[in-house]
């Protein structure tokens, strides 16, 4: 589902170019889960952004759901994100002016594949049934992240990319949210790549890789 071949990324800086990623090779087939760990500044988030078609690599090739991102324009990248990729952020990134119910359906509607029954099922599985008429600001951090996961799964993406999805949650809530997420991923058959600092959480996923100074260890 996700393939990276010899991917590199460099950012300019006042002290000269910073090589964030160097020759990354990675395969993540459908239905598999992968934890990406590494120190701060090791390039984890950059790798995630490249895989999510949010940014373009300087070298190498990235293929998502059979489509190469090389030379892909903004509209095509947006379409790929809409239809194939689901993103879960550490900051939840819910739309503050939409109610939980609307946030859950948000991406699916944009993708044109809104399935009310599936959203209802997700709502129940995520324990959000009583919260659907609330606004994000009226929810706890764990509840907001459950909404964010529901929003991602609602459009049945082929690839889910999560950037420290439990970074703002306590340990107990983190475990509960991640377990729920992995259960649902298993049900949908999506590929799941999660960036995390926590070895404990990384251990809950099927595979684990470590990034150091822009290279896979």
């Amino acid at each position, binding site marked *: 589902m996700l393939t990276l071949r010899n991917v590199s990324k460099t950012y300019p800086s006042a002290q000269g170019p910073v090589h964030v990623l160097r020759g990354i090779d990675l395969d993540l087939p459908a239905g598999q889960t992968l934890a990406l760990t590494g120190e701060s500044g090791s390039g984890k988030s950059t790798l995630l952004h490249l895989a999510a078609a*949010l*940014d373009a690599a300087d070298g190498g090739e990235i293929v998502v759901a059979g489509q190469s991102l090389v030379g892909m324009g903004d509209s095509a990248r*947006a379409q790929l994100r809409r239809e194939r990729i689901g*993103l879960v952020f550490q900051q939840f990134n819910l739309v503050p002016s939409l109610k939980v119910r609307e946030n859950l359906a948000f991406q699916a509607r*944009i993708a*044109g594949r809104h399935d009310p029954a599936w959203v209802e099922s997700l709502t129940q599985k995520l324990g959000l049934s009583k919260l659907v008429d609330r606004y994000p600001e009226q929810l706890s951090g764990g509840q907001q992240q459950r909404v964010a996961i529901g929003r991602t799964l609602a459009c049945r993406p082929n690839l889910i990319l999560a950037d420290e999805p439990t970074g703002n949650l306590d340990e107990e809530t983190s475990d509960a949210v991640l377990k729920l997420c992995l259960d649902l991923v298993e049900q949908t058959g999506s590929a799941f790549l999660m960036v995390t600092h926590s070895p404990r959480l990384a251990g809950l996923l099927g595979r684990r890789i470590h990034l150091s100074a822009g290279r896979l260890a």
Partner: protein
Amino acid sequence: MKRHLWTLAVLLSHWRRRPFQLMTLVIGLAVATALWSGVQALNVQARQSYDQAARLIGGDAFASLRPTNGTNFEQALYVTLRRAGWDVSPVIEGDVRIADRSIRIVGIDPVTLPQGAGPITRDALDDGPETADGSGESRAVRLLTAPSLALGDAETVAALGGVDTRPTLGNGGQLPPLVVATSLPPETLVTDVGVAQALLDQPGRLSRLILTAAPETRSQSLADLTGGALERVEPDDQGDLERLTDSFHLNLTAFGFLSFLVGLFIVHGAIGLAFEQRRPMLRTMRACGVSARALTAVMLLELTTISALAGIIGTVAGYVIASALLPDVAASLRGLYGARVAGELSLQPSWWLAGVAISVIGALVAAGSSLYRAWRLPLFATAQPEAWAGAEARARRWQLAAAVFLAAIAIGVLLQASGLVAGFVLMGSVLLAAALLLPSALVGLLAIAQRLVRGPVAQWFFADARQQSGGLSLALMALLLALAVNIGVGTMVDSFRQTFTGWLDQRLAAELYVGARDPARAADIADWLETRNDVDAVLPVWDAETRYRGFPVEVFGFSNHPTYSDHWPLLASLPDAWSEAEAGRAVLISEQLARRFALAPGDPIDIAAPGGDWDGTVAAIYSDYGNPRGQVMIAVDELVARFPHAERGNFAVRVAPEAVDTVMDDLTAAFGAGTVEVVDQRTIKDISQRIFDRTFAVTLALNTLTLIVAGIALLASLLTLADARLPQLAPLWALGLTRRRLAAMELIKAATLALLTALLAIPLGLAVAWILTNVINVEAFGWQLPVYAFPEQWLRLIVLALITAIAAAAWPALSLRRMPPTKLLKVFADER
């Protein structure tokens, strides 16, 4: 498509959660549009009236023969020309008073009137045989047969009593039955030429001849046939009125534009704030698969929809404003230029569409930077307060650079350019440069204050005010502009009022002003007055009209009397100006004429006159405020000799003050109220003062509206920023400051910013006043004014600015004071 609609729905959800912000945006756009559209409606309405007046009876389509001097000529000349083969049609025009209204009477000859000579033939006379008496005769026929008809527009006919009524004139005459005709200018009645001559008390005289065709073979020239009494004037589709009133309308447009600009400050602020608040939402949408192009397109659609709705509201409000101001505008135009403007608005659909379009265009201009930022929005940037501070500092640097650039333009215009448009460019550059400098000036002043104070809370107060000034900068700029323009216009108007009052005292030195119905009566009245012991002098106020290098000029005859030499407001003169003028060797000219043709005392001047052109010297220049035409004063004997048809019905009478009432009563009793009109000095000054006040009523009304708009801008900014202020205030609350104290400090902070802005507005306002009086007035009206300072006016505006700021900050402060601790705690929860 569905995807875009959903994206739009998500964007709109922001407004659902922040209705006040949406209201701010709509109000900003609506008031900006309202003031602009209102002013445009006034201009359009006035120009429609000018066009109708210019088109009336062939003014725009046919050449005409007009008297070379004076306003009318002997009807015998018409007969002479017809006999010589000239295809001409007679017209007489003049004003009469009917029930306190001044009505223009136009007399025509339906038989010789050419087809296409203005709306009168096309619409009015061909309106068909719709007669009240059912006689079935066409209007052309009824016009020719007694008692004839008087055709007027619906508004005028209704005001005079309605169709088929026959109102009585001030001079005792009676109008023919009134009939409604379309396309006629307001306060104008068209009737048969013979009837009009009687109504105007000018038997056997005409104002002009419409020239359809001159004979192909001419044995005698026009000058030979008429003895030089008539000259050919080519058709003019603009008309004197439109030319004369251009400055007035440019002034109105400038104020309308300023109000529009101040309104756009609100819009820019509201849209900018909405963008910042929606930045995370936009980023999320982009991350979820909405392309930059689609997102920008949908934002554009959202903005266009909102601005179109606001435009409709604004245009309707503009109509209401224009309706309310129209009577004053009409009075100003009449007082200044003698122009007749309809008292009711009749606007084309294009005006309504233009109102909505200006709202949409204004919103797009105000939102340009936000839309660009949405288009270029980085997808995964995180919130960086330091970067924000840096961006604000960068913005201030750009503003400083733009201000320097505008200041350079202002200096360049001041030194090199001339003309009315250059005057407005100068004023616009100065105002915008000052507005752009304001944020830096405020930050500088607050930084100085922060260094001067000791306590930590006081230091925080100024530091926080400095930080808050960034968010309020647009509203404060709007306030600065509104206050400066108020001070500038207020100073100009009050300086003018002070000058005008003094000038009136000089010009209206006589105790009584007498007007007779005809020259024969005037002579009788003068003789009667001369016999009275309580009358010191009877001074003729006689005048004629001519042109100097194409510019309309009034020639005014004065007699040898100290009333003139003691009182007349001379601006510059030769040492023996009065004696030279009394001797017929020199003239005195008005400031307008002097400025227009760069004439100075000692310069030669030649004045065209039917009794022989007159060559003399300019002996002095005097101020003649409010007169769009030029004026020349010559000795009354010279006037009579050179202008045989000069108007000789008016006198100024010097009377012992205690005898004023007696003379007035005796005069009226001796000659009858219908024959003589007597006005005392006090009354005529009151009338002049009222005209003055009405002239500036529109300017002052627009000024006040602009200040209200600036108040709304400040209120809107403070209210929309209220939530954003919590992260700054919550830590202080946590450190031990009470909500009450914090609320009080918020109030004082808003007042401090408004006070500093108001203080900076004073020098800017004085600069505006200087530009208005020394550049724009001179270009627009031809006279210059001394500028006086009115500190009490500044104090009033400072207090007003403080009240506005405190009122605007009151609600957020009150909310803060009543805010439950849980909401303040949430600030810390959100920071986890």
